[in-house]
């Protein structure tokens, strides 16, 4: 499993194309994140529209990305969320720390 990445200007984008609920998906996110991070980008946007489900494992990987960026004054953002993923982010108050890229 691989998640496509794209760099536009100062922002890096990761398109999550499946559910974030397994080790494989978590590894795909980590790998896509590293790809952009290693190119020096410190504003990274997650597009989670392709994920129907996220569990604590997936949330853990998202927060790992958040912390690595925050440690270098970077920002992890999300595209507008919907459905179950949105509910989960709100439940865990992640919507308070991850700004939306509109």
């Amino acid at each position, binding site marked *: 499993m691989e998640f496509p990445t794209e760099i536009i200007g100062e922002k890096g984008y990761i398109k999550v194309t499946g559910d974030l*609920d*397994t*080790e494989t998906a978590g590894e795909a996110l*980590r790998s896509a994140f*590293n790809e952009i991070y290693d190119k020096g980008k410190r504003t990274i946007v997650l597009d989670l529209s392709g994920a129907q*489900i996220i*569990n*604590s*494992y997936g*949330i*853990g990987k998202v*927060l*790992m990305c958040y*912390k*690595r960026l925050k440690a270098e004054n970077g920002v992890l953002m999300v595209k507008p969320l919907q459905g*179950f993923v949105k509910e*989960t982010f709100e*439940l*865990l*108050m992640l919507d308070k*720390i991850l700004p939306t890229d509109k």
Partner: protein
Amino acid sequence: MGMSSAPPHILLADDDPNSRAIFSEFFERLGWRYNVLGESNQVMAALASSGYDVVIADVTMPGMDAMQFLDQVRLQSPAQAVIAVSDNASVENTLAFFRKGATDVMARPVDFSWLEHIVTDVVNVLRHDQSERKLYRYVTSERTEMSLSCRELAELNCFSLPIIERLQECGLLDEPCALRLKLAIQEAVMNGFEHGNLELLSAWKEEIQDDGRDKFSIVRRQRLDDPLYGERRVRVVSWFHEGVLEITVSDDGAGFLSRDGETIVGSACPNDLTCSGRGLALMSSAVDIMRYARRGAEVTLIKQLMKHEDS
């Protein structure tokens, strides 16, 4: 044509006075109970509060987006039967209505003898389903038990309990609720597997090594290879009785609580970013009660699916 028990209860969504009069006369002639509304927002409000057997909707009402309306009904009342009445019942439109969840589609001018036939069929099926649901509640008491080693769990893509699918099929669990429960059970099983049996610490997920991997993943793989950890088991017992679903997940670890009997009612909302809080919040948000025993090596999730007054 046979009709089981009470007459059908119909909601007519139509804004045309002539059409409303014709439908009303038809309903009265057959002795059906009915209500007439002319705006889609009124219809949605009525569906939220009253139990209609069938909605007969003029999907070409001015200001109404037929597809959006059917989407809304499906979202708000997934089991609601809707007969779409359209001025334009082309093959393309009819298929689109069915795809959006319409139970049936009728073209104007309406063939009322055919409408009577459709509504009677729908209501008979509905009543049969309802009696089956009652039967399921009063007669079925189902207990299942599963036991898997950590190595077996590591091979699984995801853990699921068949009873959740069955309760969903019976209409006792709607889709969002079933999804939350499935994930809660997965969280409980993963907790027992990774934290209870493999004794992995959540904090290790935050410890990133030079190669970008976290310590948690590295130690997890090492311990799965070690029979001392890898052969430990997770047991899942599900019990559905009297409309209550109870799922107990236990592991072979020592537990993480300082004392037994800690109970979390409702939703636990973590106000920090710690790993352990996330799984617990996801679990407790899906059920009515989450209870621990054996110092956390056993967790029971309890969800009431049907209340006694529903009988």
